[in-house]
């Protein structure tokens, strides 16, 4: 198998909050291979954005990566000096943030922000960049791009702001794109268009995409592999077909079971959802134990070891390592 483009090993992230610190990420391992779309899914608050921000080294002051390594291009990003990191950010790894409007500069016209990225990362001259920025905006489905380029972020609809951000990211031509819910707030037709575009760029440039999303429909249509996160830990990782056909962690099963389909109207109640319980970050065992319907005694005491169900399918669950199918 090829060398991974991004390799995250034993990553731990602690966040200080009211004089108590907790491991918001614990023992996170996963790879992103060259030229693939890797999905990262999981509960709200499970640490997906923090994982991405750790890779980008854009963590809030209260957070600290206290263990592990992130290998990218032969370097451990966690030990890179900030000056080295600045060269990686944007030109080699670019990120679309969860909140597009906050990521855009409110005082700068949308088109200028795209043009600036083109000048910075593709070395275009100002007039070239201006022309190319209009093309890019049109590419991401913004109609009337010439006029929209002159708008300030607050004059754009939520979905337009999102697409301006995607255009900026594409302008950077990075080896790795990290997209944190890039299509929330976009209607499904434009969503389909954006993914076509990302795939095209990927094919042209050989870039990889780490896609954070809650939309399992999108995962199923765009990703090759997926990692499932819960309370700061990876619970399961597999090829996308495998994961949908053979979900092997009780959390993954529940997550897939809670999908609502438009083509099926059903009377809705919370039995479809995962019962709520607070997360015990200090637990020595599996963090899902208090919500797991099949919990064993050992789950409270010990963290499950990796259990390989195939070349590319790994699950962290005592039920599996106990040898149950």
């Amino acid at each position: 198998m090829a060398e991974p483009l991004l390799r995250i090993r034993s990553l731990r992230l602690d966040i200080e909050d009211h004089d108590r610190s907790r491991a918001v990420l614990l023992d996170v391992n996963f790879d992103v291979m060259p030229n693939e779309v890797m999905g990262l899914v999981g509960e709200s608050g499970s640490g997906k954005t923090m994982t991405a921000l750790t890779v980008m080294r854009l963590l809030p002051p209260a957070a600290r990566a206290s263990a592990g390594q992130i290998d990218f291009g032969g370097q451990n990003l966690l030990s890179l000096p900030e000056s080295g990191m600045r060269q990686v950010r944007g030109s080699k790894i670019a990120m679309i943030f969860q909140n597009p409007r906050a990521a855009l500069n409110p005082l700068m016209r949308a088109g200028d922000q795209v043009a600036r990225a083109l000048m910075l990362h593709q070395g275009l001259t100002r007039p070239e960049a201006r022309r190319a920025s209009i093309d890019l905006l049109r590419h991401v489905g913004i109609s009337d791009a010439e006029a929209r380029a002159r708008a300030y972020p607050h004059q754009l609809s939520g979905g337009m702001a999102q697409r301006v951000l995607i255009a900026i990211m594409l302008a950077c031509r990075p080896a790795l794109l990290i997209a944190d819910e890039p299509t929330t707030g976009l209607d499904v037709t434009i969503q389909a268009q954006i993914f076509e575009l990302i795939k095209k760029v990927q094919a042209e440039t050989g870039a990889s995409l780490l896609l954070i999303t809650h939309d399992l429909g999108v995962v199923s249509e765009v990703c090759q592999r997926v990692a499932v996160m819960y309370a700061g830990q990876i619970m399961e990782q597999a090829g996308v077909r495998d994961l949908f056909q053979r979900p092997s962690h009780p959390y993954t099963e529940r997550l897939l079971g809670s999908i609502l389909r438009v083509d099926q109207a059903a009377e809705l109640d919370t039995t479809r959802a995962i019962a709520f319980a607070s997360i015990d970050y200090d637990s020595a065992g599996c963090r899902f134990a208090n919500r797991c319907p099949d919990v064993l005694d050992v789950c409270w005491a010990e963290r499950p070891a990796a259990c390989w169900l195939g070349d590319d399918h790994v699950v962290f669950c005592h039920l599996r390592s106990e040898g149950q199918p």
Partner: protein
Amino acid sequence: MTEPLLQVQDLHKHYREGRTTIHAVNGVSFDVYPGEAVGLVGESGCGKTTTARCILRLEEVTRGRILFQGTDLTALPRSRIRARRKDFQMVFQDPNESLNPRFSVRRTLREPLQLHGLYSSDAQLDEAILRVNLEPEHLGRLPHQLSGGQKQRVGVARAIMTTPRLVILDEPTSSLDMSLRIHVIVLLKRLQREFNLSYIYISHDLSTIRHLCDRVMVMYLGRIVEEGRTAAVFDDPTHVYTKALLSAIPIPDPTLKRSRILLKGETPTARVLMAGCSLQDRCGFVLDECRQPVPEYDLGDGHRVACRLAREHPGFQTAA
């Protein structure tokens, strides 16, 4: 029959931008009854958020009337609007707009209660935060210390604090996983039953709309092009735009290959008002008549469609 809670009548909102005009909303009319959940869906930029902001008087309307319990909000002075805010609330698309970055979650939730004299103790706040599956420890946090979905849930909790009559929710669950989304829908449904709350639910998440809303309105380029009972619109979409929209939904089954109804080209600019159907340049079924103003066809039971294809619908013959 009961009186509508909200009546939107011929709403227009135009923005000036330099020497041109953006026609964000062009003649939208609809009613919302007490205890009813109405979905508003449509392409990005079609004017959903603008419609919501006009209803709440966060924007001045260009033309049209907004009647809330019979009172025209567009004619009220701002001070009077503020006093009625208890009765209509909004969850903003961008959670940062609902949440003051310098306020703790506790203060964000307490303030609307205090403002309307409903605050008695912090137990109310604990209850509110638990309702959206967060925990009392989150009350001490500032917005930047929360994940995207956690912020969204605080926004929802804040909007329902004062038990308003009408809540407009603009993409309130886009950053939530499916399981939490179900919890939010079930919560909204319960409040709807218990307090007869009404909702306008704006979302691109059509499966949530399908499960929450009694009625749905499909918007394209500033106009409502199809509306009706949710089941009727989803199972029997009649406008070409609605058909294309529904066929584009990704289905979570990697083995499935689907055919999609694709629209040609891109959304036209909202700068020029088009005569006739606004989809004419992208539609595969377009005829000459589509370039003339399109009447609204009634398919019965409130299912209305502004598309010539509606004439071939069996409901059209009976309703006519």
